[in-house]
């Protein structure tokens, strides 16, 4: 009798389970990349010497923290740019907070920095012990709100990371309580974010993430507000993290990774591809650009050109370059050296790392990156400047591939 009642209950659970599965959203195509259109075209201080303004450079405001890292950006509805980064006495310290500031393109200046999240707020909001905070990555939700994904660690190093998120309805002035994203079956350990999310046609976000504990591989999370509703593996093994996704069409996308290979393997950019909107990914041939186990940033412009910022050397992070591809040939050419300490002795070389790129109007590009772990550097490339660089790309004499000098 007891068994019959239990089996009837199981039948009820089966019905509820099937109804639940039936109610889950189906997988949909990507939204073809169209950066948030600002209401007004950015007008930065024009360079009087030339028709094409030179890229401008600013620094994110300092908070007095000795160590800063992992800056990211998002375009605001009023044409401004909001930046996030983490800062503290050292990377991984308990006093690390996630800071934010807003860039006013009219005055080319940043607002006073604010604290979006600190360790104690995170652990109180998430109702569990948190030891340290890490990478922040912002996203624009389909309903117009901002969502900030960030990494937290309760035990161990970065390999013990989990992702949480907060949501803002006022462009980042105030934030909701954090929510935990569950992404791993082993105590939810070891999932991190670094690169910007992309949008699905149903308004949900596709968040490129990665594991870096036993395996080091990319994962593609399908996120519905504060929870992961599906995830797919982008690579396997121990060789590729921090996927950066370029959407080629509604079904096709290419992911470039930071390589984490062992010493005797090629130090180049690993690649994965999907032909079904991220439902399955296949490893592809490496991009023949050196990568010293460091993050890369990228962006597709409205004219089809793609840009990437990365350290194009095999060891060290002392050189940072801007590269461009016309989007059709798939060939990448260096268009600007942003930082280069190659001439300095090893011990004097600074570290330029963790680039992050966004566009406000689809033609221009804002870049932030870690400058020797002490400051966050911001560079702005106008649409005109990038267009000029693009036109130079197609010039026949420049079509010869530029050699990448390994370090």
């Amino acid at each position, binding site marked *: 009798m007891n068994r019959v009642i239990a089996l009837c209950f199981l039948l009820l659970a089966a019905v509820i*389970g099937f*109804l639940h599965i039936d109610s889950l959203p189906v997988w949909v195509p990507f939204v073809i990349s169209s950066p948030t259109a600002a209401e007004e075209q950015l007008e930065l201080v024009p360079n009087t010497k030339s028709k094409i303004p030179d890229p401008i450079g600013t620094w994110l405001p300092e908070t007095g923290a000795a160590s800063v890292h992992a800056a990211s950006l998002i375009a605001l509805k009023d044409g401004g740019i909001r930046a996030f980064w983490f800062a503290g006495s050292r990377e991984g310290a308990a006093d690390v907070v996630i800071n934010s500031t807003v860039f006013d393109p009219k005055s080319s200046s940043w607002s006073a920095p604010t604290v979006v999240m600190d360790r104690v707020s995170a*652990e109180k909001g998430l109702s569990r*012990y948190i030891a340290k905070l890490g990478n922040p990555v912002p996203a624009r939700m389909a309903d117009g709100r901002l969502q900030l994904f960030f990494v937290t660690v309760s035990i161990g190093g970065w390999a013990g990371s989990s992702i949480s998120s907060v949501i803002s309805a006022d462009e980042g002035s105030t934030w909701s309580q954090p929510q935990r994203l*569950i992404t791993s*079956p082993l105590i939810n350990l070891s999932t991190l974010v670094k690169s910007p999310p992309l949008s699905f046609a149903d308004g949900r976000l596709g968040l490129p993430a990665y594991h870096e504990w036993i395996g080091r591989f990319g994962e593609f999370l399908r996120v519905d507000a504060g929870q992961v*509703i599906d*995830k797919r593996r982008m690579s*396997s093994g*121990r060789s590729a993290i921090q996927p950066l996704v370029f959407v080629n069409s509604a079904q096709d996308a290419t992911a470039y990774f930071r390589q984490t290979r062992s010493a005797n393997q090629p130090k180049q950019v690993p690649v994965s591809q999907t032909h079904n909107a991220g439902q399955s990914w296949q490893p592809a041939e490496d991009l023949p650009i050196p990568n010293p186990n460091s993050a890369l940033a990228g962006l597709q412009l409205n004219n089809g050109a793609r840009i990437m910022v990365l350290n194009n050397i095999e060891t060290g992070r002392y050189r940072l370059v801007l590269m461009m591809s016309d989007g059709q040939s798939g060939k990448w050419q260096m268009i600007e050296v942003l930082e280069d300490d190659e001439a300095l002795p090893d011990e004097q070389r600074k570290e330029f790392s963790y680039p992050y790129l966004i566009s406000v109007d689809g033609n221009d590009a804002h870049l932030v990156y870690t400058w020797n772990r002490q400051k966050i550097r911001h560079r702005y490339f106008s649409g005109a400047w990038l267009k000029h660089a693009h036109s130079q790309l197609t010039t026949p004499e420049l079509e010869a591939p530029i050699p990448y000098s390994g370090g």
Partner: protein
Amino acid sequence: MNMQIIALIEMSATCAVVITWLLQKTASQEFPWMLKVLLTVLIGNLFYWPLGFGMELPLAAYVRGVTGDLSIVTLLLLWTSLLLAAKPTPILFKFVIVLLALCFYPLALGLGMIDPYAWGYGSIAFFIGVLTFALVCGLLNWVKGVWIIAIAIIAWAAHWHESANLWDYLLDPFLAIWALLAPLGILNRRRKEKARSGYLFRPG
């Protein structure tokens, strides 16, 4: 009720159950049922409420920071094994859990491109597999198993925990470790029984 409060209550109860179980293990005689309940409630409250003493969070939140939320199967097995005098969990169930965990965790943690964890987000085939497993538990006359798996499925559909993945309601590493240690428990019990019977025949 807030999902975080539910999770903290569950974790407090689990910590209380484990401590009560440890107390019972060290005690010379079996606790009466009421004492077990009383101890569990008392210790559970200690874990749930913020105690101060320089701590930012209740004790349960510190444990949760390390363990994450436990699966419904683990919770129910743990709670019922202390508070209900049920027959021991079948060794076959433990064996299947061990086998499953040995295949599942390496694949889910990055070995190859097949990720069985992703099936837990709504794969019909996986769900039918889970139902079949529960049905087999029922046919083998382990009724508690049927109840536990059915409750875990309903908890998943109701989004009881933070996870939207059915795996997280069914399996966690602690369940796998417990199942893996089962042979040791059996050996220990046999050793005790032997020692006890030896005592009976010891000359007085």
